[in-house]
């Protein structure tokens, strides 16, 4: 049973095809990686899943619900969260406020309640704060919550971003190059964190990553995209020995891909 199911997704910009009939799925409970050379269309695929790009053809379903017509905030409400290649925390907001903002779609109090600060609204604020604190603790940020988020060290900012994504209570978490710019120690912690997110919070993970070592260790399934076409899908072992993948990466035939 797959949580995310893409069928024949085709996306073109000004006549040139960025994604060409992409079939792709994320099985429930799995950590899946999406790899491919630069310009293969990986980030475009993420943008289609989150509703920012509208594919001309195809279907994108989360647990059987068609999402093609949904706006980005509705996709988030359905249970998909994402982080970016370059950290994009909200400036001029504290760490805690950043993570609290992730729970917007789960807010029940209306604007009027908020303006009048009714008791129900205050209670909800306390709940939102509690959830944010829990998410921050989960990713290992246990202090500095009142600091302006963008003043934290880079590695911490990445974790805050993951905490903020978790605060939206996703069923599927998309991570766009989560290891970029991290030290090797931080990468180890990231691998551990991603596994814990899946195991303890029951969140499926789909990541784009160029660090192939990390991809091989972490992924249970790998899909390979090249020039907008899905050229391979399988376990890390199968992908490592797949001839088409090797050609895509190296442009020539090789005996083995030294991933």
């Amino acid at each position, binding site marked *: 049973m797959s949580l995310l199911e893409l069928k024949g997704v085709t996306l073109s910009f000004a006549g040139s095809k960025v994604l060409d009939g992409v079939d792709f799925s994320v099985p429930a409970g799995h950590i899946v990686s999406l790899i491919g050379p630069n310009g293969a269309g990986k980030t475009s695929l993420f943008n289609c899943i989150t509703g920012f790009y509208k594919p001309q053809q195809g279907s994108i379903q989360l647990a059987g619900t068609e999402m093609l017509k949904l706006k980005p905030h509705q996709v988030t409400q359905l249970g998909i969260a994402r982080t970016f290649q370059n950290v994009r925390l909200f400036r001029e907001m504290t760490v805690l406020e950043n993570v609290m903002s992730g729970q*917007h779609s789960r807010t029940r109090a209306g604007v009027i309640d908020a303006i009048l600060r009714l008791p129900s609204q205050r209670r909800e604020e306390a709940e939102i704060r509690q959830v944010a604190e829990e998410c921050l603790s989960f990713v290992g940020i246990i202090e500095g919550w009142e600091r302006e988020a963008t003043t934290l060290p880079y590695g911490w900012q990445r974790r805050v971003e993951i905490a903020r994504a978790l605060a939206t209570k996703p069923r599927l978490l998309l991570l766009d190059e989560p290891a970029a710019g991290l030290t090797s120690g931080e990468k180890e912690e990231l691998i551990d964190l991603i596994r814990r997110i899946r195991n303890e919070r029951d969140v499926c993970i789909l990541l784009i990553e160029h660090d192939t070592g990390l991809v091989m260790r972490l992924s249970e399934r790998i899909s390979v995209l090249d020039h907008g076409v899905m050229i391979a899908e399988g376990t890390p072992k199968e992908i490592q020995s797949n001839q088409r993948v090797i050609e895509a990466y190296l442009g020539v035939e090789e005996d083995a891909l030294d991933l």
Partner: protein
Amino acid sequence: MSIFDIFTNQLLNGIVLGSFYALVALGYTMVFGVVKLLNFAHGELYMVGGFAGFLVLSFLAPYLGPGWLGVAVSMVLAMIAVGFLGVVIERVAYAPMLSAPRLSILITALAVSLVLQNGMLTLTKGQYVPFGAALGFGGIKLGNLFISYNQMILVGVAAVLMLALELFVSRTQYGRAMRAVSVDKDMARLMGINVNAVIGITFFVGSALAAAAGSMAGAYYGSLWYFMGFLIGLKAFTAAVIGGIGSIPGAMLGGLILGLLESFGTQLPGVGSEWKDVFSFSVLILVLVFKPTGLLGKPEQERM
């Protein structure tokens, strides 16, 4: 009058004037924050708010009286009506333009301003309209300083509205959504925030504050005029720039500072009250030259 009396008197005048400026400046700065638009029609919403308050009061005065009770209820209803007007303006005139070049939308804003102004000119035939409130002349005397109850209520209401706004923006989920939208709209969408709804709320709140100022000004000064929004719109813009456009505390501070500068500035030797506007717009130019980001504004960070 001693120097001290002049000082306290001008301080009071400055605070009253500054309250009006601040309320209008808040809408300017909030709208700029979320859609990066200088809403030059904002001053007209102050004017329309004054007329809306007048209209409601003329219906309610027989029941509630023309005193502060009637004015307060009229003000609240005017705020709601003009709040919705602001949302309609945003949806009809600005929303389709948001991805157009900045200059196009600025011209749209000027057009909206002219539509509202000339619409009211036609309706009122260019006449001054008496607001119809009767607020009384009571007050308290502190030494040589006379503070009217009207001034106290006016400043008090403005302070309460601003405090409520500050709490709304800093302590509620909608306020956080508003700040998130102003920083990064796409990221806000990924947080499940309905960006269009947040923009709508922002226009509603900003327009309602302008209407509050317009109704209070009508009640306080006694009459309304179709052109009354023009100058205060520019002054509020100046106040927002002084405080740092986009910053809510900045707009409050900027409004107060501008009000005080004007009331004290006119007391300087050789600077009569006819120089008031020259004075405030010179301040605008000086701020733009020496601290373009304003007192509380932060420099815009370019994203790589």
